[in-house]
């Protein structure tokens, strides 16, 4: 299903939660809706599913407005964060719920449920009761139940957030695989940027009831539209500077750059800053993270964070208090125009 949301405003208890959201999802696409808790992600997909009344704006499915269409006729199925499995039914009955509503023949239902259970790697679990399942198993049942409803649009509301990292990865891969096999239009809500970047065709970043940017993982990571977007995908070093005559200069140096003259800030990720022999900066902190390490350096450009691999750190022989030089990779920098100071 092709989903198109325009100028969507939604209020809960008199407070506006969504302030004019625009989002398009192409048929068969996998979009991740990324944002911190309370940013309106869940409100957005519940509005799409018809569980919330909208104040203004429009939600269209395959070009037709969904206004006034009750949730059960939208073909939009949510897998909620708290899973919401029906505790009074068996695994089988949970998955068969939507098929029973459609009065499908029993034999067909049994066949479909069995196949779905295999798809989510729970073969033979049909007779189990919900309370006998582990967290990961419940998640898979919830997923299978949603798939059994033959959704035109699958909405996943952080269904893996309760799992440990290993299970999360596994579930992510499973969802991705099912998406590929079934060509199902999918929207995944998550606050985990890596999950979003890894799984989605496109990522939409939400903050305070607005979508800040929507693009492919590479786009949104390498060409953030604003400093807020850049900051969401990890630490950034903000280097204030000026552009003049096709060159940008800041505390880390001057390099050619086709920018309009004026005040700009260059955002450089910690991995695109390198410690080089020299003496302008003092190491004020080292956070050892295992495979990588983060150095905090103080010097002319202020406090700068620099990521290095653990091996490189060992080779450099730096420790707190060491003096070093610093260099940025100009090609990787993103520039934001400073308003009002031009």
């Amino acid at each position, binding site marked *: 299903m092709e989903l198109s949301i325009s100028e969507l405003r939604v209020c*809960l*208890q008199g407070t506006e939660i969504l302030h004019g959201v625009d989002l398009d999802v192409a048929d068969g696409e996998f979009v991740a809706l990324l944002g911190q808790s309370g940013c309106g992600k*869940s*409100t957005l997909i*519940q509005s799409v599913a018809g*569980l*919330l*009344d909208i104040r203004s704006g429009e939600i269209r499915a395959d070009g037709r407005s969904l206004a006034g269409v009750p949730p059960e006729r939208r073909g939009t199925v949510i897998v909620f964060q708290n899973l919401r499995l029906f505790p009074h039914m068996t695994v089988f009955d949970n998955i068969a719920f939507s098929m029973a509503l459609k009065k499908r023949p029993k034999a067909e239902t049994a066949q479909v449920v069995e196949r779905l259970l295999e798809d989510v790697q729970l073969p033979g679990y049909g007779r189990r009761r919900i309370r006998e399942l582990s967290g990961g198993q419940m998640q898979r049942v919830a997923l299978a139940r949603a798939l059994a409803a033959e959704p035109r649009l699958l909405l996943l509301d952080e269904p893996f957030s309760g799992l440990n990292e290993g299970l999360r990865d596994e579930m992510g891969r499973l969802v991705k695989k099912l998406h590929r096999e079934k060509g199902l239009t999918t929207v995944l809500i998550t606050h985990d940027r890596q999950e979003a970047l890894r799984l989605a065709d496109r990522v939409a970043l939400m903050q305070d009831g607005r979508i800040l940017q929507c693009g492919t993982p590479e786009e949104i990571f390498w060409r953030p539209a604003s400093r807020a977007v850049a900051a969401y995908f990890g630490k950034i070093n903000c280097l204030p500077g000026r552009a003049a005559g096709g060159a940008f200069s800041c505390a880390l140096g001057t390099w050619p750059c086709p920018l309009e003259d004026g005040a700009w800030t260059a955002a450089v990720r910690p991995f695109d800053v390198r410690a080089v022999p020299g003496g302008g900066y003092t190491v004020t902190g080292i956070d050892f993270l295992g495979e990588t390490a983060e150095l905090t350096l103080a010097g002319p450009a202020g406090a700068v964070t620099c990521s290095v691999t653990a091996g490189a750190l060992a080779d450099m022989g730096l420790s707190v208090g060491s003096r070093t030089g610093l260099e940025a990779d100009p090609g990787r920098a993103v520039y934001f125009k400073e308003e009002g100071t031009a």
Partner: protein
Amino acid sequence: MRARKAAPYLLLLPHILLSALFLAGLAAGIGQSLGLMPALGLTEPTLDYYREAFTRPDMVRAVLYSLRTAAVSALIATAAGVGICAVLVLSRRAHDRLVGLVRLPIAVPHVVVALLTVLLCSQNGLLARLACLCGLIDEQSQFPALLYDGWGVGVILAYVWKETPFIVYFVLALMANIDGSLGQAAVNLGAGPWRAFRKVTLPLCRDTVLSGFLIIFVFALGAYELPFLLGATAPKALPVLAYIEYVHPDMRHRPYAMALNGVVILISVLSALAYYALMCRKVAALRERGGAR
């Protein structure tokens, strides 16, 4: 939260109709107590009946008698009920078979409670016989008159027997719940179980306990059966006296009944306001939870 405009009102419709009937009864009662009885040609509102209710000796005594029995029985029942809850919760027996037993009297109608009280507490009841067996008394007449007495001891005993379980029923689940979670946390933080119960569980149950107290107080104030069956000829309880005036062949007595009822309403309204204040806090809590999305 879903906000389809008409749905809640449609769901409430039967309740609204019933409430309208209820209010009609209440309003008619208040109107009659102010002397408004169009059928008898009385259309001028007057406070005369109230004035009389507060000066006629039998009526004044009825007011005091009813207030006293209601307050004393409700206080004892609430204290006993909370005490039983505390014992059940602190000894971890809140799910015991005993709980079912404690709740038994709730299902016993008041008229049967009256019968039980007669069988036990009258001057030839079981208690009097036990007293005789122990050599405390020789004659039936030596046993204190618990029934049909001016103090309403029998009425109070009957109410306590019947309403204590109601308080247990009303409070136990909440108390067990709070003690199970927060009380344990307090114990974890170093408070003794009793101290944790007193400082954490009990204060959190306060609103519910107060609601329960108000319910049984108002009930005892306006209930007819027990004072009618177990009370003295004088003083009479408010509802008993009111009913006598109400069914008096001379219809002009009816406003007296309503004035007595008006006194009950006055006390009830004060209780209701207190109860509503407690309920409002509950609604506020509802809102908070409702907004969790």
